[in-house]
Every structure is written in structure tokens, then in C-alpha cells.
């Protein structure tokens, strides 16, 4: 019980001292910044975010700051690879859609007529290089 009372005393004193010291530091820093008279300028959130990322990237090298590495695929971050894959698939679909009116008379899957591609393939299959009758 005596120890516990000592613990509470330590908590009150300790936190009080930490707050007092850091409060003093806040005041001192404010004075330094006022004396420094550097202008304030509004900046966009994205700019500040990019700057913060740069600072964090440098500190990442410190011992005790290692974050578990995200999953990678051939050295690239897995979520980046997934994003590239989706973008490529989307791009391919868009190209196909754009090219459809030129390349085909009918949409893929139509049972009415064979596409030019299929027709050409069938023609090639039917053609034989063997001379007739031999």
C-alpha cells in the first residue's frame, strides 16, 4: 500500500514535471520563432503531405523505426503492381472498345456472322498447300 501511494505520487510529480518542462520548451520555441520573423504562407495539403513524407522517409533509416515491409512482387510493392494491372486491363478494354467498329462488323460473341478475323482464319484453315490430286 505504501508502494502504491509512492506510485501515485510519482505519477503526479512525473507527469507534472514533464508537462511543465515541455510547456517551457513550447514558450521558448515560440519566442525563438517570433524573433526569427519568418513569414507564414498558406500551402496546399498535398504539398505539406509530400514534404512530411520526405521527412519520414529519411527517419525510416533509424534503428527502431523499421516498419514491416509491405508485400512485393519482383521488387515492386504489391498494391502498386495491382494498380498497374488494373490500369492495363482497363486500358486494353478501352482500346478494344474503340477499335471494335473498325475491326469487326459485329460485336464479339455474335452468332450471326463470323468476324473478319475468324473468317480469315477459316479461309486459311481450308486452304491447302498440297497440290490437288496428289
Amino acid at each position: 500500500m505504501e508502494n502504491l501511494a509512492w506510485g501515485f505520487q510519482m505519477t503526479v510529480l512525473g507527469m507534472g514535471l514533464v508537462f511543465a518542462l515541455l510547456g517551457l520548451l513550447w514558450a521558448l520555441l515560440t519566442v525563438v520563432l517570433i524573433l526569427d520573423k519568418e513569414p507564414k504562407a498558406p500551402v496546399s495539403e498535398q504539398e505539406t503531405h509530400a514534404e512530411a513524407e520526405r521527412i519520414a522517409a529519411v527517419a525510416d533509416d533509424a534503428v527502431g523505426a523499421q516498419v514491416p515491409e509491405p508485400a512485393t512482387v519482383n521488387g515492386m510493392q504489391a498494391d502498386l503492381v495491382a494498380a498497374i494491372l488494373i490500369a492495363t486491363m482497363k486500358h486494353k478494354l478501352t482500346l478494344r472498345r474503340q477499335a471494335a467498329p473498325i475491326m469487326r462488323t459485329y460485336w464479339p460473341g455474335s452468332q450471326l456472322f463470323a468476324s473478319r478475323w475468324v473468317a480469315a482464319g477459316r479461309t486459311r484453315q481450308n486452304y491447302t498447300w498440297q497440290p490437288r490430286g496428289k
Partner: protein
Amino acid sequence: MIDQETIGLLLKGVNNVTWQSLFMIGVSFVLMYLAIVKDYEPLLLLPIAAGCMLANLPLSPMIAEDGMLTVLYNMGITNEMFPLLIFVGIGALTDFGPLLENPRLVLLGAAGQFGIFLTLIFALLLGFTPPEAASIGIIGAIDGPTSIYVSGILAPHLLGPITVAAYSYMSLVPIILPPVVKLLTTKKERMIRMPYSSRKISRRTRILFPIVVTVLVGTLVPFATPLIGMLMLGNLMKESGAVERLTKASAAEIANTVTLFLGLAIGSTMVGKEFLKPDTLFILILGLAAFAVDGAAGVLFAKLLNWISGGKVNPIIGAAGISAFPMAARVVQRIAQEDDFENFLLMHAMGANAAGQVASVVAGGVLLALMGAGG
């Protein structure tokens, strides 16, 4: 013919295998797994695991009187040199700009130290002596070198479990913090956007900062002088730009070498007979509690600031007021973006995080001062 004595000598190693040493070798394998496969603090956990394995091999000459691990322990842990040298490297890699842009965030760093003292009370309730309880509480600084420094002075026999807890949980910050933050905040609060008004921080201010902090903290809490002095020395070298070679060496070669030595020396303290006690389990549980309490205290204090400022402070940045720099800030940014993808809090969180870095050192010094130790 080989006589009985020769056979006895040949089998001396096998005869001295104990269940404790086998268990600890198993623990070292778990630490190796975490470091190599899971990538949890590999720079420190792998050398700790190696030190633990080498120390627990039967009749290990490495922990004998003149063994390499004993020499490393005496060289840098007994006299606290290794954690201090690591601090120089951390200072050289830390940019306190986000804190200087918004100095009031320093208060969030203070709030983030509450876990130290609450854990101290929990440890006392579990029957630890005051110096042991203070050493366990310092896990709540979430700062490896500070934990090693303080516990090395107050309770060197607990150094192994305290260091393992401090560094293992530090890599679990992305897992520990989010549930605490979400439990204590509403979605509306998490979506608060904080405006930026970038104050250009001059080189003069950046150079003055480490000097002012060292003189202030060193004068008021002399016990914190070694910690804050080395941290700020690294930062002064970085910001001055005058000693680039020293800055690079401190952040890379020196930090890497010392980390290897520190890890091996800490691992060598994890000898089965001393490590396998209920106390170790309590320390691991208390360490986890300390991390959670720190995050919670930070968030609650930020909620208070939010109320005082009329809704201008997003309470979740309080969770970054701990020392795990910049991991805690990144976690806070991720939590913010889960609710509002265009909410950019990283710079504010980095400010609180940098404050946590300074505050943890101050709290370590205050704890030593209150215990009447160190210096």
C-alpha cells in the same frame, strides 16, 4: 582406449543441456522468425536472437568472464554508452521541422508519456520493487535507447525482457494504435481536417533548436543530459551542415555497428535460468499495456485541445505523441484516410511524433531524477 573421463569431457556439452536453455534457444528461433520472415525490427531483433542463442548454448564460453558477449555488455551496456551512441544516429536522422512549425504540439508529446507512470503503478501492484517498476514503466516511453538507458541504471537484471518488449512492441505500433484510436474517437472527430499554414523554418532556428533544448532540459533535469545531449548533438550536426561526414557516419556506420553490439549484448542477458520467470511474462504484458495507455492518453489530451480550440484539432494526432518516429505519424495518417481519403494529417502527426521523441527523453530523465539515480 578412451577412458570414462575423456568420454565425460566429450559429452560435457550434451550433459549440461537444461530445459531452460532449450526453451530459450526456442525463443531465439521465434525472434529470428519475427526478424527475418515478419520483418519486425530486424536490425535489433536478429542480433538479440543471435545473442540469446549463443548465451544459452551449454557452457557457452561467450558469456564467461572474458567471453565476447560479456565484454560487449561491459563495454557498452554497463556504462550506458551503446544507447547513447544510437541516440546520436537518431538525432542525425530526425527532422524537427514539423514540431518547429507548430510548437504547441509539444504538449501532445507530454501527454503521450502517461503510459510510463500508469504502468509503474500496475507493476507496483504486481509486487515489483520501485526501481523495477520504474524500469518496466519506461517501456511506455516507446523508445528503445531510453528504455535500455533507464532500466540499465535502475534494474539491470530486467534489461533483457524490457528491451525485447520495447523493441517488439515498437514494431507492433501499427497494430496496437488503431483499435485504441477508434475506440476513443467518433468518425466525425476522425474526419476533422486541420489547416496548414506553413511557417518557413530558417536554418538559424533549426540550429538553435537542439542547443536550446539541450541547455533547457540539461539544466532543469540533469539526469536527462546524456540522453537529450546525444539526441540533440546528432540533430545539431545534421542541421548545421558543417560536418556532413560525421552526420552520415553517425546515422549509418556508427549506428549500425553499435546496433549489432547492443543487440548481441542484450541477447546475452536472456539466459534461461534468469529469464524464465513469471516476472518476464508480467513485463511483456505490462509493456503492451504501456503502449496502449500512451496512445489513449495522447488521444484524450488531443480531444481536450480540440474542445478548447473549438473543433480545430483532430484528436487522432494525439496518438502520434509517442516516440516511435515516424511510424506512429504514418499510422495516424492511415487511420485518418480510412474515413476521409483527402484528409492529410501527416505533417501535424509528425509534429506530435517529434514532440514525443523529445518528451520520452525528458520523461526518462524525470523518472531517473525522481528515483534519485543516474547522472
